[in-house]
């Protein structure tokens, strides 16, 4: 099963530098053939949202949902089941600071 993993935080940097630990996580999950792709995202200050209403695009500065939790990165995982995905997500260094959300990919059978 494929899962998109959203790495979430409150928009602030944790006090310790997680760069090395995150790279180690990426190396392990790439090595296990679980992580297919993924990247860190620029902060919400750089986000832009577009909504089309009545055929007219309405462009606004900022994220789609304003909240205290923000998505800081994503990874696409290929796992046997949710238990494996939870083990992988739980090992991500950000899980101990913010949280990691797992969303199953909506698979189109027969496509």
């Amino acid at each position, binding site marked *: 099963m494929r899962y998109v993993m959203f790495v979430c935080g409150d928009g602030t940097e944790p006090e310790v530098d997680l760069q090395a630990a995150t790279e180690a996580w990426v190396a392990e999950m790439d090595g296990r053939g679980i992580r297919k792709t993924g990247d860190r995202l620029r902060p919400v200050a750089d986000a832009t949202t577009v909504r089309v209403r009545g055929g007219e695009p309405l462009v606004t500065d900022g994220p789609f949902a304003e909240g205290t939790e923000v998505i800081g990165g994503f990874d696409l995982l290929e796992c*046997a089941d*949710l238990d494996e995905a939870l083990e992988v997500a739980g090992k991500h260094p950000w899980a101990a600071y913010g949280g990691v959300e797992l969303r199953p990919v909506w698979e189109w059978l027969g496509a």
Partner: protein
Amino acid sequence: MRDAVEEAVAAAFRDEWGQVFATVVGLVDDWELAEDCVADAFAAALPAWRRDGVPRRPGAWLTVAARNRARDRLRRAGVEQRKLAEVASMPDPEPLPPTEFPDHRLELIFTCCHPALRPEARVALTLRTLTGMTTAEIARAFLVSEPTMAQRLVRAQRKIRNAGIPYRVPPAHLLPERTAGVLAVLYLLYREGYASSTDELVRAEVSGEAIRLARALVALMPDEPEAVGLLALMLLQEARRAARLDAGGELVLLADQDRALWDDSLIAEGTTLLERALRRGRVGPYQLQAAIAAEHDRGPDTDWREIVRLYDELLRVLPSPVVRLHRAVAVAAVDGPAVALPLVEELAAALDRHHLWHATRADLLRRLDRGAEARSAYAAALDLAPSAAERRFLGRRLACLG
């Protein structure tokens, strides 16, 4: 009066639903479909058994009927051949020994209690899939409307499929944590049936189902001392059920209960189970709570010092304010209310929204002849108490203070 065939269907419903469902869901990998097909099989059983006689192995008959129904529905839905072949290849029951139908209830219960499901969904799904209690019955037990409960069940079933929650007993490295989750759900179920605000009949049924599930779990995991400890705890509490309410439906405190109404055979069974669990040398919160219940079941011979000691041990593995409150009650029995009161009051910040904290404090103040403070504490408890029987009990206490 029910005739013999109706009795046979009712007995199969009670004894076989969980096992039939566990097998079918493992085959079709779709919880909603499995539930429909198992329900259809039970509906078909009555006319078929009237016509052909009650089968020698009703569970096997029902499993095959549900499997066939699932195969037909999948075929009509045009499901891929591989899946159909898998479902169709399940053996027919009659010529085969019973071992050909392995018991999948352990897979089922671990899946129902998966931490990715909401706690209330875990409890409802465990009841629905393992006991065959209907959605309407479960809704009544949890005081929600039937559509609300139906939606809760469907959402959980869909999440199992869509989120990829595996249908299995977890591997060794996850087993301790997940077993604790299963035990928590069963105990929550039991407590719901023991102390919820629904009527006594519904409650007794939910507690009874929790005990039956705990028995099944112990049979499936005989080496897990906490599972045995949980069953012992349930039986040692269940033994006092008949004495908890008087003829008028009023709550009776442990100390005032009619000992003759206690069920000695349940006490004996619970005590034996507890000793068996403790011999394994891996003590845990359920075994300790069972040991406390066993000590209470000794009635007037209860050794309150031993209960304080057991609560101290319990606090080491389960350091919760509610456990500390119970310990304070035991301390009051040993050293008197003046020693216990400060132990209760230091829990104020954690428990002042909890009626038992106010009720315990009120009782200690009453015993210390601090009437005015006791009255306001009883009033606070009365405001927070969830069940009518508890509110009436607290109201009587308040009235006694004048």
